[in-house]
């Protein structure tokens, strides 16, 4: 298989952060109807194999574009910056302090009098911090300058921290259930 198109091209969407999610999911279903292996169940092995490869690419593209963090990372990657796999980069110390405080609260959450609402509160706080970072990324990535690109990457690195925290919260919630 040789899919040269990037995910935005694959879905014929403009390569920007603020995409129409409704349109994305509509096109996703449209493409699934054409490409899914079930459409080829009665056909030859070869077509089934090919369709599985295309659908896997489609599913990955959908998962990437649907999530704001993955979409932001992907936009940077198209610009040659891989924030996902890079090793440590210096971070804003104030932000790190804030993260440490949140992590401490997270660690204490299971011993909290009402762990469930404590975790929910933490989750809300994370979402609150996420919103301005997305706005920052969105305004920086559109500017075709080196400094803006780096500012956009810095925002995504912070989003990655918050996302990790978000997943930790979910894991603890699962354990509580």
């Amino acid at each position, binding site marked *: *298989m*040789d899919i040269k198109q990037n995910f935005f091209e*694959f*879905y*014929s969407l403009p390569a920007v952060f603020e995409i129409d999610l409704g349109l994305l999911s*509509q*096109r996703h*279903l*449209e*493409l*699934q*109807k*054409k*490409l*899914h*292996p*079930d*459409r080829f*169940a*009665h*056909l*030859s*092995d*070869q*077509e089934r194999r*090919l*369709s*599985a*490869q*295309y*659908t*896997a*690419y489609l*599913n*990955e593209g*959908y*998962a990437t574009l649907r999530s704001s963090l993955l979409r932001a990372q992907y936009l940077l990657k198209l610009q040659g910056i891989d924030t996902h796999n890079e090793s440590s980069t210096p971070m804003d110390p104030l932000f790190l302090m804030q993260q440490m405080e949140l992590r401490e609260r997270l660690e204490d959450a299971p011993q909290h009098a009402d762990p469930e609402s404590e975790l929910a509160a933490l989750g809300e706080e994370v979402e609150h911090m996420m919103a301005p970072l997305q706005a920052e990324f969105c305004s920086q990535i559109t500017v075709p300058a080196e400094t803006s690109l780096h500012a956009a990457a810095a925002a995504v690195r912070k989003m990655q921290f918050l996302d990790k925290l978000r997943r930790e919260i*979910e894991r603890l*919630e*699962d354990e509580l*259930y």
Partner: protein
Amino acid sequence: MALLQIAEPGQSPDPHKRKLAVGIDLGTTNSLVATVRSGESVTLPDVQGRHTLPSVVRYLAEGGPQVGYDAHAKAVTDPFNTIQSVKRLMGRGVADIKKLGDELPYRFERLDEGMPYVSTAAGAKSPVEISADILRELQRRAEDSLGGELAGAVITVPAYFDDAQRQATKDAATLAGLKVLRLLSEPTAAAVAYGLDEAAEGVIAVYDLGGGTFDISILRLSRGVFEVMATGGDSALGGDDLDLALAHWLVEQLDVAQGLGSADARYLTEQARSIKERLTDEPVVEVSLAVAGVEKNITIDRDQFGALIKSLVARTTRACRRALKDAGVTVDEVKDIVMVGGSTRVPQVRDAVQQFFGKALRIDIDPDRVVALGAALQADVLAGNKPDSDMLLLDVIPLSLGLETMGGLVEKLVPRNTAIPVAKAQEFTTYQDGQTAMAIHVVQGERELVDDCRSLARFELRGIPPMAAGAAKIRVTFQVDADGLLNVEAKELSTGVESRIQVKPSYGLSDTEIERMLKDSYSFAQDDLVLRNLREQQVDADRLLHSLEQALIEDGAVLLTPEEREVLQAAMVQLRELRAGSDYRAIESGVKALAAASDEFASRRMDASIQRALQGHNIDEIEEGR
């Protein structure tokens, strides 16, 4: 139909003929087979008019196994040779079986092999073979009733089944000689049975309490597409556990001094099941029990039974909450709650679910048949009988897939609820200077420690050239197909050394074992096997030739140069010649050669179809915009 098809003598029969396809619900307690007849999905009865087939197999010293009612009737008197609830053993290792302990009244042997073999009068039987016997019985019933060979079957599995359990199910079908069109999640099948005639849209929750498993799935239905958003449950919790809870209570009431034997335990479980069923209609049940020399009248009412099963039911609603959260929807967004499985008839279960969702439940289709009915609808589409159908079922993997890394930790490559098919790759490196091999351990589960997850397979990538620690780059790729089955591939990037494995669970059957068993079943006539192989290769060749003919008519002129068309047509002529012969190996290699020759064409067609899908859409939007 304006196009003419030219068939050569001895060529495949009319390709437009309706294919016989069935949906099979291979259940813990009962199994069913259904098909679509004159547009309607129906379950197929046996000659005596019974639709369900008890999932019970009895092995005798002489002759073939008894399957279904006859076997069930002997469950108490011949417990060691009569296997019930084999689904609970599918894809399980010996360690899992030991955990179930004395609840299983069988004798196991060959315990060193990882997979549990049950000792019977007909020899050691693996769960896969036992399930294959049930499938054969259903296949026979369907072929007798439909009057022809089956083109394929959709077999349902609990959404929560892991890779090992799915693989075991598919192996059982292979062993029974059934072509699997798809392994379909039971909840999705149920949603299909409800969804199609009503053109519904919105979020559906499917609560499925089967004999041995509990599943909860959250689906979104839109324009014929059923998209599984999240799935959860407990593969070791089911209606049988309600019976067991009641049976344990009965033992306490009976106050039997000595230990109970297998037959006694069976007897009490049967009694418990019947009490449970009676409590659905009666508020109080009185029974007289006689076991191990003790005789007693016992009375139980609904509230007492409710108290016994309360914690089990609570486990199911907890799983519902988690599934909703995974799907990112609230309880209020759920439009319909579909109930599946005989145990959802228990009033306490219905009350608890209704209370949790705060909505009336969908119970208009028989909860025992709904899965098979939905699977038949899907089988009809997949067999190619409904080319205009818009129906599409998009599934997810129920449990995260990962690899063991340093310190016994799990690195997740594919998180649970990822849409399938999916392919994910990740790079790893060596940790010692001069390391030439890397052990790859594939696991499935949500926990962080390898020991807490299910071990799926282990293999080694060898021949890595000696390098400094951290210098080698090994890319591991996980591919999960539409059935939820995993393939793993490892590749050292600088040298291209490769190793791939179709993940066969450590305690599953290997491909050679399946082949041997298939051969054994044909051992009386080697000719049968040859004929079967020939028939299979002919079908493959026909399928490829037919779809290429269609493809050439549709896109040949646009997507291929005249030269390319000629090359392809020459290859087709060659395969047709081989197809007319009787050498199945030659046909097999002919199919491979033609597939390779048409790869590029198939790929261009996919791309063109993507373009068409998107362009079609753009036109719609323009029109909507007006």
